């Protein structure tokens, strides 16, 4: 046995409790490790071994009295957390960013992505005692994707032509057109699998989830209380005895709650105060760079943004690092005008980064032939700090000879009167797991949320074709080259100016421990209650 293998073996034995700490350290020293290193290794393993017990109190900056238990209506981080706490999905994005089966043990495509077979896990029980079968999956899918469905995830399932079961633990989906990302679509948090009765689910029934915690009480916009599901099918998850998700909308109240120990975990920590909070001896700050990005969409159906050179000029006229430093106070990274993060599959690693370049900006501006002021509508409703970001952009563009005219818009009614209406404004996106899902939300020609109206240029037409081709392509190398070309088109010709990727900032008590942290949503993929534990 090689030395490393031996050590690995001993590690496993120690974790399982077959050998004790002393034995582990002596065997580590025997392989040649120095004593402090061996002690350190034991400590690391100890921290990484989850312990059961305790009640997690999570102070969330989200939640509204308009929320409900119906997963189809979930629209904020707290209600999403409630879904992940009480239920499961066919698939999930793991904390290492990979798509894995959850209630589905395995899934595979055939017929070039048109037929998808999901094999369900056996022996999974709902909180009401019912066993999971294919009927529950079909009824849940029907609830979210059926003809009269009112679920927010209806679009995700619009490609499903038919569903049928093959035995009690296999569901076969026939799609209208091939889609290699279908398992990603089925991981959408709305599409929670709920227990069915006579082919229908009751979306408001608190006991029809399979999740890590059972609903004890839920008052929307105030508090969710759950207790551990003793029959949870994931053996290495759900370590707390109970969880409380508490809506604490006021940032100062959230911070005082976590500082005084009234909460163990708090999300949405403002960048302004995070450095002060980090000084508290009992707290740890956790930042994740996820899929949340801030964007200034330029609409191609409005002058002067229909001009390619105008768009290029503005992309070069922004001091991106200055925005990261002053708007996010360093808690983020610069963007490159594509809505794809390095954590997403098929991210283009070789695209040139847009940087502030007044000469290039002036050159493109001249070529555009446009001379008047360029109106930019901003409000903090678009993203927090949007007005200040606009002011900085006015200054940096001035040096390139471009006159941006800042128009301050009211926060109230921003999303109906300004966004997707005015030629240039500010907005944000987050949480899309794949390029296809992101493009279908805001970039393909059909979607009404195509905030840049980038539909008719040569590049946009090509882009739409590429996205459709990539969707049904099951060969990964070919998909990669399709998605890379799509990103190149968007980067060069598209109307999105994406200067910022904002971090999710959380604070938690030092008594909490965790494994690798997911970046797809805030709060470790909104699964802190399932994945974390008290050390």
């Amino acid at each position, binding site marked *: 046995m090689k030395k490393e293998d031996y050590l690995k073996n001993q590690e496993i034995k120690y974790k399982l409790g077959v050998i004790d700490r002393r034995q582990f350290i002596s065997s580590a020293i025997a392989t040649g490790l120095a004593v402090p290193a061996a002690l350190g290794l034991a400590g690391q393993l100890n921290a990484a071994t989850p312990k059961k017990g305790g009640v997690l109190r999570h*102070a969330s900056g989200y939640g*509204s*009295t*308009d929320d*409900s238990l*119906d997963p*189809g*209506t979930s*629209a904020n981080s707290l209600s999403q957390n409630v879904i992940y706490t009480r239920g499961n999905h066919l698939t999930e994005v793991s904390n290492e960013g990979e798509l894995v089966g959850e209630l589905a043990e395995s899934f595979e495509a055939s017929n070039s992505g048109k037929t998808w077979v999901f094999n369900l896990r056996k022996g999974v029980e709902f909180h009401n005692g019912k066993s999971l079968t294919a009927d529950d999956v079909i009824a849940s899918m029907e609830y979210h994707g059926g003809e*009269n*469905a*009112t*679920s*927010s995830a*209806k679009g995700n399932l619009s490609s499903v032509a038919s569903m049928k079961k093959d035995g009690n633990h296999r569901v076969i989906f026939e799609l209208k057109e091939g889609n290699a990302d279908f398992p990603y679509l089925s991981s959408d948090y709305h599409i929670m699998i709920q227990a069915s009765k006579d082919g229908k689910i009751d979306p408001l029934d608190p006991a029809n989830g399979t999740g890590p915690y059972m609903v004890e*009480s839920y*008052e929307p*916009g*105030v*508090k969710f209380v759950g207790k551990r599901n003793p029959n949870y099918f994931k053996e290495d998850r759900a370590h707390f005895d109970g969880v409380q998700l*508490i*809506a*604490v*909308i*006021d940032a*100062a*109240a959230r911070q*005082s*709650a976590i*500082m*005084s*120990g*009234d*909460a163990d975990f708090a999300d949405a920590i403002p960048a302004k105060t995070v450095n002060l909070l980090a000084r508290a001896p009992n707290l740890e700050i956790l930042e994740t760079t996820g899929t949340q990005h801030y964007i200034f969409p330029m609409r191609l159906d409005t002058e002067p943004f229909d001009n390619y050179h105008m768009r290029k000029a503005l992309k070069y006229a922004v001091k991106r690092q200055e925005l990261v430093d002053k708007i996010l106070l360093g808690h983020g990274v610069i963007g490159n005008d594509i809505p794809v993060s390095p954590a997403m599959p098929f991210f283009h690693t070789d695209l040139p980064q847009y940087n502030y370049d007044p000469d290039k900006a002036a050159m493109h501006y001249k070529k555009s032939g446009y001379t008047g002021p360029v109106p930019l509508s901003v409000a903090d409703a678009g993203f927090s700090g949007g007005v200040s970001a606009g002011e900085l952009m006015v200054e940096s563009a001035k040096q390139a000879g471009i006159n941006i005219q800042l128009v301050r818009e009211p926060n109230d*009614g921003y*999303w*109906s*009167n300004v966004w997707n209406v005015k030629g240039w404004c500010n907005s944000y996106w987050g949480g899309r797991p794949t390029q296809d899902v992101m493009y279908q939300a805001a970039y393909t020609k059909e979607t*009404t*949320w195509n905030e840049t109206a980038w539909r008719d240029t040569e590049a946009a037409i090509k882009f739409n074709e590429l996205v459709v081709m990539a969707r049904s392509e099951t060969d990964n190398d070919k998909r990669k080259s399709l998605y890379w070309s799509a990103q190149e088109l968007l980067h060069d010709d598209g109307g999105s100016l994406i200067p910022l990727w904002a971090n999710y900032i959380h604070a938690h008590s030092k008594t909490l421990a965790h494994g690798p942290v997911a970046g797809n949503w805030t709060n470790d993929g909104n699964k802190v209650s399932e994945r974390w534990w008290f050390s």
Partner: protein
Amino acid sequence: MHPVTKTVLVRLGYGLLTLFLVSVVIFSAIEFLPGDFTQAILGQLATPETIAAFRKELGLDQSAVSRYINWISGVLRGDFGSSFSGRGQLTSGTSGVGRSREVADLIAPRLWNTLFLAGLTAIIAVPLSLFLGITSALYRNSIYDRAVSVTSLTTISFPEFFVAYVLILIFGSLWPVLPTLANVDASTPMAERLLRSALPAMTLTLVIIAHMMRMTRAAIINLLASPYIQMAILSGASKSEVIIKHALPNAWAPIATVIAFNLAYLVVGVVVVEVVFVYPGIGQLMVDSVTSRNIPVVQACALIFAVTYIVLNLIADIIGIITNPRLLHPK
């Protein structure tokens, strides 16, 4: 008819009239909202057919008078209608009928929480401010009087959220004895509910005590100059006897008015304190509903607030009338 009964009945009549006028104002608020109201609520999903369905469901196709009659007759039966919540989530072709919660169900637990906090604060603040007011009048211009005045004026001069943060700093961080999150719910046991409400109640007490205390003190001192008090003093009554037996009964009317005013404030005006301590009261619900344009909830809350003010002022008036010896002993 006894003049007291008559005055009380007249006051009641005025109260009902005010309530009617307020309900008209609240109802017409929906008419004054700028822009297209249905479009604002449905947002992205405002297709022509959802707008039509929504307008029909709200009865916006009927005249304002018949809508008002429908609404007010529902309110009289205890039916505040159903909330607009969740309608932003619709897919096209539906108006979300049957997916929203009843307004009464939304408001009831919140109203109870608010009344609990108001009651708790009142139990502490009213006797305390009366005591401080009377003793200040008794020992007026003493060090004690000045200390009480300065302290209470200091706490009322700061904005309430600042008082709240200072209390959190003292009792939550430096000397952590009280919870800073007051997120009570229906299942919270009474002892824990009291503990969790301690800091908000302390904050509110500090905010309202000065007003009531100063009014008590001023009303009593005012009376001390009147001839019948001088008569009492000349007849040899002790200082405390003069104040409690002779001055206080005549001072009740202004004191009751100020107390009623502050109690009403405790019910309708404490949203800032609720937000800071995450106390699920009715003020937070109303603010949430305003931002999400949940008009039925806003209307119901506004009506409850109006009722609170009117009823408490009515009680104060009645107390003022029945403690007035001139009215109690008609010629």
